[in-house]
């Protein structure tokens, strides 16, 4: 069976992947305008400033949108149908993710449901995934 795609970090994304390996969701923030953003890049997309910094996000998120894919990508054959989701981090930015610890069905995946980050090994990196955040967590 084919292998799932494995990310290959680049210098500007390495701190993100280093964070994942440490069990932290590290993203960037503009020191001039305060905008938090993802994906990693050296310029604030809000104001154009290059004065940006890394910080550790809370890992809290909500489910913004998704599809349930029935035609699996290489390596996902045993998991189809599986959800490909876009989550909204509590800090504002959005990112794509898979959803774990919950049946990937329309009934179980309700938009805006609270989620929290978790990490899974993928080749040489640790990959952020999201799982339902229970009440009170």
């Amino acid at each position: 069976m084919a292998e799932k795609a494995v990310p290959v970090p680049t210098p500007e994304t390495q701190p993100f992947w280093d964070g994942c390996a440490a069990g932290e969701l590290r993203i960037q923030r503009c020191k001039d305008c305060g905008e938090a953003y993802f994906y990693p890049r050296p310029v604030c997309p809000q104001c154009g400033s290059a004065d940006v910094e890394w910080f550790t996000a809370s890992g809290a998120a909500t489910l913004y949108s998704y599809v349930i894919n029935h035609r699996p990508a290489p390596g996902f054959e045993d998991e189809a149908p599986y959800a490909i989701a876009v989550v909204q981090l509590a800090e504002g930015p959005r990112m794509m993710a898979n959803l774990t610890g919950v049946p990937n069905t329309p009934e179980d995946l309700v938009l805006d449901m609270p989620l929290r980050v978790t990490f899974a090994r993928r080749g040489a990196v640790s990959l952020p995934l999201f799982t339902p955040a229970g009440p009170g967590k």
Partner: protein
Amino acid sequence: MTGVIIAGAAETDQVGKLPGHSTLQLHLEAALNTLADAGLTTRDIDGIATVSFPGPVQVAHSLGITPRWMDGTAVGGTSFLLHVRHAAAAITAGHASTVLITHGESGRSRVGTARYAPSPSSVQGQFEAPYGAFGPTTSFTIPVLRYMKECGLTHEQLAYVAVAQRRWAAKNPRAMFRDPITADDVLASRIVAWPFHLLECCLVTDGGGALIVTSADRAGDYPKPPVHVLGTGESAETPLISQMADFTQSQAMRLAGQAAFAEAGIAAGDVGHLMIYDAFAHLPIYGLEALGFVARGEAGPFIAEGNTEPGGSLPLNTNGGGLSYTHTGMYGMFAIQEAVRQIRGEAAAQVAGPEVSVVLGNGGMFATAGVLVLGRQPR
């Protein structure tokens, strides 16, 4: 207005399943058909535009053309609309006089073409591919659940987009799918990426098309009626679907449309025929709202009430669209071709004398957009 016309337009002899044609061959057949349509030869062409594969150098060389202007803009299926826009600027600037724009794609048979695979160190390779996102069906589709929640679109209304377009395709002998369908048929077709069913996803075909753009001063010099390019627009939003600013509307479509309508000096009410790039059933919905034909949340009901199908007030995707006519992968060329046919009065499902036709192209997954406003007369 831009001061240019489309003087020639043609598709390949056939579209659909063409295992005997390579991607390059489809470009060349479309080019030769278009030269014949305009009554020109390769010697008359001094500008060339096409996407990066096989690229303007290859197409020009294969045809024996030495360009003094070229454009290799490759931003997805809307690229050919941008080529028209860029050609208009080049002709106005005197950088070219007669521009040939070609599309060909062996999208189904995959003869002589490149396979799409993002590098694992690209932004897509790091932040999308690891989650099993694998081509348009798994990413272009993601925004629609958000749209459904915020705007009230129903599954039946989404399915009905395919029904309305099939009604146009039934009138077009070149369309791949022509049999009538119902919303129930669409919802009963197999799930590709829920909430999308097979019949809400475009075809995958082989084919090509080409255009010749030249100065409006030469309108009347060609065998076919001139199609005036009244206005053009282009924009880009994001290379990653996850970074689309608002999943319920396309900023790129809206900005490209505003630019094109302003240049043409038209409003939505002036438009008698409309083409909206439909790789999936939700795109006509996003497009109708982005161009201001209906308000936010109204496009699903507007289509379901029959307004865009034969006999409706706003004929939309009259060739059957990517859902029923053909979709090689970069469909934008075919949307332009149908608008040209409608303005000329030679479409298979001809609508009553549209003075103005608008073409909205999408590139990537809500990544880029282009808009052309085409007219029977200069404005």
